[in-house]
């Protein structure tokens, strides 16, 4: 038995379409394959070479990839997110291009994106949701945002891109302002929790800087972009409740390693130009290898987290929970009977489902044990014939009281089942106050737990469980110091 459902072998979902294997593979994994292919094609076009491709094409590919991700991932937020991302793309990416570009694709692509998002929000996913007031306001705000984006495109088309040079700093500033405004707006109107906004900001910055580092032909800029990658990753570490690691990584990477790299670059390339930076080794094969690697990893993640095999279990549990909810609110014995039936079938079904370890997430073991106890508590008075009770009301109370606990625990298991990979802060590991999930959002943060306890726990772990590895790491540092001196020293050349 696998200890963890995350690594359990997922049952291949039964596909109704009996097509060729490649077709079924693509039908399952297109949300992964398309953005990855587009993104790495963009990297391929941007890699340095003697005759460069215009960066506009790469920008188009990257924007299309982002759009595909948005469509698949974010669903109803798609309109705003696409507008913002395209805005960022236009601001930063084209502002960097210093030679004259054909400008007609910009409004064309912009209008296509806008039309797609408008269609999506009016007749797509969002339109299917019940139209309450918040939804209407959301639609209104979205229309205003889209209108603003249209105006921006027209402005950009008529004014900015005719200019010879447009400092990319201004583009970057505008884009950052757009992202910050959008993030604040999303949080203010509770479309996203702060953790999600910060996560997407840091993750986007990390990925963008990583692409810049790989494709920039100037090694100094590449090193600075790497520093940006490290800093964004440190932001993600903070969101994950690892403040000590954040500090250590900033000091060691951004403070020491990047500076040393910059030092060596300036020492070795005083001319500032080398033909090694203007050409790539086998850019197509390298991009292909990257595509295969990334697509393989992301396909596995997709199959794990978009797992169909858990859905049947979740539906079964949902049905049982609905009956439990009706039963726990019941006031009379006929009500109870209507909810959970005459005999023991309800309890038996529930127990069978709960005790099936292949279907339940392993980490819900405590909740399941508690649920079994409460089920037993509820079943015993339910089995007792009515005439043994002095008043029927007593029986109802005796059954519904444990059923309330059953409902609470069952709901917890259901949430766990439908959202695998959920980063709910554990009791043992305090998380950062930014990492509050929507379920915990109303509750006050636990005071005094961060950062003291986290760092203290890390120190305790290092000096108890991992004392030998710490010593080995120290020894490794010593060996590396000696080795670096031995390699870099000019042996037997005398003083110069």
């Amino acid at each position: 038995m696998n200890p963890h459902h995350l690594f359990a072998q997922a049952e291949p979902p039964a596909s109704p379409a009996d097509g060729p294997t490649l077709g079924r593979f693509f039908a399952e994994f297109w949300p992964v394959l398309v953005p990855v292919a587009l993104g790495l094609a963009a990297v391929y076009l941007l890699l340095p070479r003697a005759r460069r491709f215009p960066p506009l094409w790469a920008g188009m590919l990257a924007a299309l990839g982002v759009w595909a991700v948005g469509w698949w991932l974010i669903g109803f937020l798609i309109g705003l997110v696409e507008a913002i991302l395209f805005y960022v793309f236009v601001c930063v990416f084209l502002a960097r291009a210093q030679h004259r570009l054909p400008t007609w694709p910009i409004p064309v692509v912009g209008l296509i994106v806008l039309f797609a998002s408008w269609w999506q929000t009016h007749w797509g996913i969002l339109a299917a949701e019940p139209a309450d007031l918040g939804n209407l306001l959301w639609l209104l705000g979205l229309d205003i945002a889209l209108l603003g984006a249209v105006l921006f495109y027209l402005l950009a088309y008529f004014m900015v891109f005719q200019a010879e040079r447009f400092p990319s700093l201004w583009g970057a500033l505008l884009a950052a302002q757009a992202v910050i405004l959008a993030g604040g707006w999303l949080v203010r109107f509770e479309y996203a929790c702060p953790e999600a906004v910060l996560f997407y900001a840091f993750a986007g910055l990390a990925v963008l800087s990583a692409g810049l580092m790989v494709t920039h032909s100037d090694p100094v800029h590449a090193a600075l972009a790497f520093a940006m990658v490290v800093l964004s990753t440190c932001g993600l570490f903070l969101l994950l409740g690892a403040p000590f690691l954040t500090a250590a990584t900033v000091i060691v990477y951004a403070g020491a390693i990047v500076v040393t790299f910059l030092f060596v670059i300036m020492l070795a390339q005083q001319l500032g130009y080398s033909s090694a930076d203007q050409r790539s080794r086998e850019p197509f094969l390298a991009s292909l290898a990257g595509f295969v690697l990334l697509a393989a990893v992301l396909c596995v993640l997709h199959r794990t987290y978009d797992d169909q095999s858990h859905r049947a279990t979740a539906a079964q549990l949902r049905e049982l929970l609905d009956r439990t909810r009706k039963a726990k609110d019941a006031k009379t014995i006929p009500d109870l009977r209507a909810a959970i039936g005459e005999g023991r079938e309800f309890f038996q079904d529930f127990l069978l489902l709960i005790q099936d370890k292949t279907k339940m997430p392993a980490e819900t073991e405590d909740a399941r044990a508690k649920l079994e106890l409460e089920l037993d508590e509820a079943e015993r008075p339910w089995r007792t014939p009515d005439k043994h009770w002095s008043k029927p009301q007593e029986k109802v109370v005796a059954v519904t009281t444990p059923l309330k606990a059953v409902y609470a625990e069952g709901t917890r298991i259901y949430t766990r089942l439908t959202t695998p990979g959920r980063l709910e802060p554990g009791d043992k590991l305090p998380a950062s106050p930014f990492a509050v999930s929507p379920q915990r959002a109303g509750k006050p943060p636990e005071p005094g737990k961060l950062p003291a306890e986290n760092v203290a726990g890390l120190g305790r772990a290092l000096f108890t469980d991992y004392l030998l590895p710490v010593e080995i790491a120290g020894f490794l540092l010593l060996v590396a110091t000696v080795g670096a001196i031995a390699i870099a020293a000019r042996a037997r050349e005398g003083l110069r």
Partner: protein
Amino acid sequence: MTSVGLENYLIVGAILFALGAVGFLARRNLIIMVLSAEMMLQGAALSFVAFSRYHGNLRGQVFTLFMVAVAACEAAVALALILMLYRARKSLDVSLWQELREPDQEPVVDEEPAPAPPPPERWPTLTPAGPEPPQPREETSHV
């Protein structure tokens, strides 16, 4: 409400790892190759910390701490090696070291032509100092 789960962090880690791999394979500059390897380490570290949070214990964070230490060692040794290689060839181009290949392998020949060197930079020139050279005076009318 959108919330962030384990898989989001794993996706970012995988992207950093793959981009680092592309950079390591495609770039020629030795320093950028080492930087790409460091970026692959960053992607792995992000996945470790996310799993640490997911399981609610500190093992992943401890592992990442060791990764930082090893990355520092790696950077020191790699920079020493790069300096040595640079002294031998006066260039950071990794394809100048093709004789390190296996004996039965053919050398890689660049299909792409070498890029043209950049035009020499033109600095602004100051007007030369000294007395003004004699210039032929033109007749001007003072009507």
